[in-house]
């Protein structure tokens, strides 16, 4: 280990996250490999190591002969200060080598608030920030992940971006890079050829022009790059790789357990939800396979908990068999089975009672909106009767802790909808009074609201975000109408939501804002410890951009969106039809009760949810 590093580590918090050496870390001979990749996660170790996507890609990339993929995370601020003060560049955990020794540097972009951290990691690794400053072929800096569905805000920093699922695509890009390295291609040649790989977006091959009002006029490809880049996906999800021999961190991480991915995509189609649109079409694994993968993962990791993770787990067809199969293994070994993202319906509660044999956790529901009218408008197919029935079963079964999540500022929301949230909380409380088995233990109902953020590739991508003042007015209105002692109300701050809104729907000009904020000290801004709103407003001003243009401005349906050259599977026609129905307050059936032809099926050879 580096002598300087050895001196620093005893002084920083949780040093084990900076050393590597965990069980099942992949070590290869660096002199024998042909290509070295640094998989960078723009957040701290505990967050990055909890990311299932990163776990899968670490495995699939390392499965390539002659390629060694290592992990890089952002240091917490104490460690970063020490590293900068002692001239230690950002390094990969496996080898301890700095970023400059890698051929490919890939970032996972899963949330917009991590953007400044990407710049910070590049800088700490001694890598020039802008693609245009990196004239050599190596290192290639690229990015993937769900936030790339609007690649524009980070476009100037990336040599290329990979859209959609990376299991196959990343390896294709790295194979091409290996060839280019061997044959001594220059960077422009590599990028031109890479742009021919389906799913690859090379920002520098697209020229963006703006109208006088600041909206995008045209995005023009050059050098044969495609007009539209279509996301990639794994078509044979049943047989796509899922590593059961994953790294087991030696220090506690956020999701410190086995994560089993039941399916990709979601049949629900909530109109505010980006994940529900961009991961389409639905593809699932058989319960037999999942039981086998779950048991093997538990056996090989030694974890005492397993969680079933997908966008809406209770929509998994074989959930009963899956839970039974896993419980047969888990119960005798005191292993906990957790089932997040359940829907508030009877079927889910039945499952819930079965899986909570080992340990009993709290219950969380996300009705999202306070009235049936608004829930219908956003296509959140949950009725208050279902929610209350679920609570009744839960309270009768001994639960006494319920969390309820809502959004404020949804399109068409009125004060009546806001007050409806307080009503639901009251009804849940009343339900507890009538059904609790032991009232002496009390009840805790937590209501949380966040500020709605319109996201690209959703039916609400054209909508205005409510202003911070308006959000806070609705927060006050709600706060004043919640009286019960047992109901706790938490609300997210409006500042972060406003910035996230700008970043998620931003155009290429936002790149300069991100850079300014980073230069002013911004990093790890997904953590409230480090987020500072004034840095963002100052940066926007310095760049001559208006926050309201990106947030509270309602887009015209004919306006060209900055991400219109990216196809994530759902067509604009579908999104517009869904938007219209939102205004009419009309539900769309979930995918199983009627296909709405969203456009994603052809990407999977016409198949969906089979």
């Amino acid at each position, binding site marked *: 280990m580096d002598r300087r590093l050895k*001196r620093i*580590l005893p002084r920083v918090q949780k040093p084990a996250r900076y050393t590597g050496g965990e069980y099942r*870390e992949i070590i290869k001979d660096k002199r024998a490999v042909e290509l070295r990749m640094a998989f960078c996660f723009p957040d701290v170790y505990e967050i990055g190591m909890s990311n299932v996507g990163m776990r899968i890609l670490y495995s699939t990339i390392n499965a390539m002969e002659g390629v060694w993929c290592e992990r890089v995370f952002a240091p917490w601020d104490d460690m970063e200060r020490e590293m900068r003060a002692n001239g230690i560049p950002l390094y990969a955990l496996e080898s301890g080598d700095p970023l400059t020794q890698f051929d490919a540097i890939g970032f996972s972009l899963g949330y917009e608030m991590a953007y400044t951290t990407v710049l910070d990691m590049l800088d700490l690794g001694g890598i020039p920030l802008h693609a245009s400053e990196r004239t050599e072929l190596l290192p290639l800096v690229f990015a993937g992940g769900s936030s790339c569905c609007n690649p524009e805000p980070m476009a100037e920093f990336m040599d290329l971006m990979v859209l959609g699922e990376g299991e196959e695509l990343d390896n294709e890009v790295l194979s091409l890079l290996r060839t280019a390295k061997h044959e001594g291609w220059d960077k422009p040649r590599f990028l031109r050829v890479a742009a021919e790989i389906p799913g690859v977006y090379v920002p520098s091959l697209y020229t963006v022009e703006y109208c006088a009002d600041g909206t995008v006029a045209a995005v023009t490809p050059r050098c044969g790059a495609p007009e539209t880049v279509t996301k990639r996906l794994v078509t044979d999800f049943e047989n796509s790789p899922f590593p059961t021999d994953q790294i087991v961190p030696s220090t506690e991480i956020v999701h410190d357990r086995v994560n089993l991915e039941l399916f990709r995509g979601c049949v629900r189609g909530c109109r505010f939800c980006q994940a529900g649109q961009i991961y389409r079409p639905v593809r699932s694994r058989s319960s037999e396979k999942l039981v086998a993968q779950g048991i093997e993962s538990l056996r090989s990791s030694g974890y005492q908990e397993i969680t079933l993770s997908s966008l809406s787990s209770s929509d998994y067809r074989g959930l009963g068999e899956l839970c039974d199969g896993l419980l047969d293994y888990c119960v005798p070994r005191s292993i906990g089975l957790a089932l997040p993202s359940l829907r508030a319906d009877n079927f889910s509660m039945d499952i819930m009672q079965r899986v909570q044999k080992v340990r009993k956790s709290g219950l969380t529901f996300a009705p999202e909106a306070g009235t049936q009218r608004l829930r219908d408008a956003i296509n959140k197919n949950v009725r208050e009767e279902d929610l209350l029935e679920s609570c009744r079963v839960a309270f009768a079964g001994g639960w006494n802790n319920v969390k309820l999540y809502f959004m404020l500022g949804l399109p068409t929301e009125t004060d009546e909808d806001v007050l409806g949230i307080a009503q639901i909380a009251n009804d849940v409380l009343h339900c507890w009074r009538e059904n609790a088995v032991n009232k002496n233990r009390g009840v805790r109902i937590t209501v949380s609201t966040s500020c709605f953020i319109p996201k690209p590739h959703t039916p609400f991508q054209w909508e205005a975000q409510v202003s911070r003042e308006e959000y806070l007015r609705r927060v006050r209105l709600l706060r004043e109408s919640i009286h019960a002692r047992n109901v706790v109300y938490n609300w997210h701050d409006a500042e972060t939501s406003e910035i996230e809104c700008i970043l998620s729907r931003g155009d290429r000009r936002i790149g300069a804002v991100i850079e300014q904020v980073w230069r002013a000290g911004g990093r790890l801004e997904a953590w409230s410890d480090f987020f500072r709103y004034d840095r963002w407003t100052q940066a926007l001003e310095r760049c001559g951009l208006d926050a309201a243009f990106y947030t509270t401005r309602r887009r015209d349906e004919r306006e060209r969106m900055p991400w219109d050259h990216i196809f994530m599977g759902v067509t604009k026609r579908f999104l517009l039809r869904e938007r219209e129905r939102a205004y009419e307050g009309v539900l769309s059936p979930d995918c199983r009760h009627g296909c709405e032809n969203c456009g994603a099926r052809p990407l999977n050879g016409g198949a969906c949810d089979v």
Partner: protein
Amino acid sequence: MYEKLRLRFAKEGRAIYISHLDLMRTMQRTFQRAGLALKYSEGFNPHPILSILLPLSVGVHSGCELMDFQLTGEADLAAMPEKLTAAMPEGIRALEVYPEGRKVKELKWLRVSGSLEYDASDPQTMRDGLQAFFARESIVIRKKTKRGEGESDIAPAIRSIGFQAEERRVALSAVISAQDPTLNPDLLVSALGQLAPQLAPDFAEFTRLEVYDEAMRVFR
């Protein structure tokens, strides 16, 4: 079936940064991975019965850690160290597993080695200064306790201590009290910082070498 088993293990290299709490979790998973079923406590919230005799500070190396545990079934004790080591993170090595370990309260002394690094001072001069400093009758230092600051004399907790000058560093070898009172070797450096700052090293690290009872017989 053995009622109680004791594991002796080493914690070295990158593993020295794993905290005590994380090590407990890691051990639990290691047994699971090695296919050895730990016995769980009874009660509302069962947890595996594991206990590390002398918790080790983060950043300290050790070749003599001891941990007590119980298994639910029979196991081949001779084969266990290899099995466990294969399931452990880098830097943790199982050395031996045996039944009927001595009572924890009979553990008294700890042999440690240390490396005191000096970037600008002459190691020979430092060695002489250190030797003289630790020969004092009493070494009273300020210590943070749960109730604020307290004073304590660490001299009685040092059974023997010696120094040797090397390149850019002074090697320390000592036998210190492991419990009643516990002397964390880091306090040897704190003492220098408080009472003889000119002798304080730029960096220090320690290694636990062996544990003994009151009569300096190796403790197992």
